């Protein structure tokens, strides 16, 4: 069987490989190379060594500020999204009537795209702030909390679904047994349920982590960095460097490589955690 299948290599893989080379392999290799070059289009690249990386960290670029802002945003949204999503999941797994309707509603925002959602919230938040004689771009903290609210609104439903799936897999016998042993519901939660859904927790934490860290559309739509780029996250910073001004494409590419490395480290962290857990079981 393997022998005959082997001959079909091109038929089975060629279309995917062609598209994959166009969309990923070639751009990725070019991207790494270009981060060491000065260029305005891909064709006129000139090797400049590490100059772009040095420039990327220079003060005027605001890259470190964006990194700090993004990290703070990510920390807060990971914690808040997961706490809220887990709480809702607990509520919805109590075998009460009509929970399906709530589940349907809570998950819905997740399907709306970042751009559409960002402008929807921009209008909402501005309408509310208007009553207090101020606006979303008046102060960076409005933009920051606006992004947090928006991210929570979008992601809670998604994470809740994963937690529900996890909680439903907890054997009822275990919970019954705990009850018979006289455990309070709080103790059941901490000692029985939580350890059983740790794999869901890992998944959710990393999903929110990488989604928050890579956030772009929502940031672009909600504040576009205003005021004075104080609400500009990493992805938007990179985008602005590329397309904002001619001559900084190399710096943008260098930032993108750094961004990629950070994301890769996060992903590797997840991988090793999951691996370790798999070994334990």
């Amino acid at each position, binding site marked *: 069987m393997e022998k005959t299948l082997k001959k079909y290599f091109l038929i089975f893989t060629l279309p995917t490989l062609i598209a*994959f080379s166009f969309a990923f392999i070639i751009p990725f290799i070019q991207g790494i190379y270009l981060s060491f070059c000065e260029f305005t289009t891909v064709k006129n690249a000139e090797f400049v060594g590490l100059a772009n990386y040095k420039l990327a960290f220079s003060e005027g670029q605001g890259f470190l500020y964006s990194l700090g802002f993004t990290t703070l945003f990510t920390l807060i949204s990971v914690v808040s999204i997961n706490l809220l999503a887990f709480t809702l999941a607990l509520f919805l797994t109590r075998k009460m009537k009509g929970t399906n309707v709530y589940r349907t509603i809570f998950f819905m925002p997740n399907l709306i795209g970042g751009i559409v959602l960002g402008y929807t919230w921009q209008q909402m938040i501005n309408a509310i702030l208007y009553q207090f004689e*101020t606006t979303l771009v*008046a102060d960076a903290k409005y933009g920051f909390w606006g992004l947090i609210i928006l991210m929570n609104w979008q992601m809670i439903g998604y994470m809740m679904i994963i937690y529900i799936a996890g909680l439903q897999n907890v054997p009822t016998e275990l919970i019954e047994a705990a009850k018979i042993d006289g455990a309070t519901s709080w103790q059941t939660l901490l000692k029985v349920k939580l350890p059983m859904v740790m794999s869901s927790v890992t998944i959710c934490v990393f999903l929110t982590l990488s989604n928050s860290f890579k956030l772009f559309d929502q940031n672009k739509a909600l504040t*576009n960095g*205003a*005021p*004075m*780029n104080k609400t500009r996250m990493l992805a938007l910073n990179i985008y602005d460097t590329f397309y*904002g001004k*001619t001559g900084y494409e190399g710096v943008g590419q260098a930032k993108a490589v750094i961004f990629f490395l950070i994301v890769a480290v996060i992903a590797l962290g997840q991988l090793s955690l999951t691996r370790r857990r798999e070994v334990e079981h």
Partner: protein
Amino acid sequence: MKRKMLSTLLCATIVSSMLVGCGSSKEPVETPQTQGETNTTETENKENAEDETAKAEGSVYYMNFKPEVEEQWQEIAAAYTEATGVPVKVVTAASGTYEEVLKSEIAGSNAPTLFQINGPIGYNAWKDYCYDLSGTEIYEALTDKSLAITGADGGVYGIPYTVESYGIIYNDAIMQKYFEMDGAVVESVDEINNFDTFKAVVEDMQSKKEELGIEGVFASTSLLPGEDWRWHTHLANIPVYYEYSDKYATDLAQLDFSYSENFKNIFDLYINNSTCAPTLLGSKAVSDSMAEFALGQAAMVQNGNWGWSQIAGVDGNVVEEENVKFMPIYTGIEGEEEQGLCTGTENFWCVNAQASEADRQATIDFMNWLISSAEGKDMMVNKLGNAAPFSTFNEEEKPADPLAKEMFRFMENGKISVNWNFTTFPSQDFKDDFGAALLEYSNGNMTWDEVEEIVVTRWAEEKEATTGNETENETQAEETVNNEAETVAE
């Protein structure tokens, strides 16, 4: 593991180099097809007929700079295609993003054939794409040849297509109502000829806004990012103009912002005597303030003669055509009694030098049509409201809207026009940062000293970044361009 990755990479490169072959062999088949498809945005039903002409005569792709006349340009494009069969595509960039959009479009395979630069700074950035227009009909027709953008080689690379003015637009009906009130500071607009008088009038009007039936003297000072060009560009032109005159310069590598206080004078007056609180300005767009003016909620708004179409276009506007007038922007600078409107141009047409010859010719023909055919001239004057500086337009062929009339009145009444020196402002980044600082200032997050600091440092930084290191102090704009061109030639 590593070795495996490497070999896959190699494999992928081989696959991709095979693809290069495939791609290029397909090209001749694909190109006319895609061209036909993209060119016919406006007239899709005639696709087939146009494909033929597109190949023979080239086509026009205009990258429009002014969102406020986007619809008019689409009409013009359709009319031209109707008249000549040549496809014209018009794309409009959102305000504040022209350079960004042009940059991504011009690098593409379907690049704009006609685009716009805003003066010497723009020419510097786009000179590789500017085609020499000397000897063309449109250049010959230019009444004042010195208005054109010329390169170091003497070529003509940008041709202005309109002259514009801006100042403070006021609603004369409201002003008259005020002058008739007891205790009015002055009795006619003619008496307002300096900042102190202006300020007294404005503040008195603001205190009587209920009696005047307005919500504030000035329409809101739009500071929404991207909507702040009336301040960081137009208003900022005034202090810069006076600083240039003091130093006999037409460009500066370093700006002292010596008239910073004067900018603050007028800016404070705007934001404190407005239809809304200063802290709300960050949500206001230009169209909001034009609507407030049109609906009679504000007596004044700073804008240019192009603003008429926006005022006229507001549903339920109450302002009468004959009451829409201009007055100069006073900031408290010595000798400003003789100052007129700010008049000039930042609208230069350039033809893409890297477009195909057929497309270039089609584009030049299109420009000629706009300034010489009866239909084209009608479009220029009545649809776009352009005061076109070409000999092909006679006395009657001037825009007849109230603001254009006011502009011509000011040109003839002996006042000194303020030049548009903002065409030498270093970059869009500089302007954006200035605008953002003004927003922070009106929200009370920044002091005026900090704003001033940003203007001075960002100006110097961006000047250095855009013109290179060789700029000496106080070189003339044109010389800077020349130097730049020479260094490139070397």
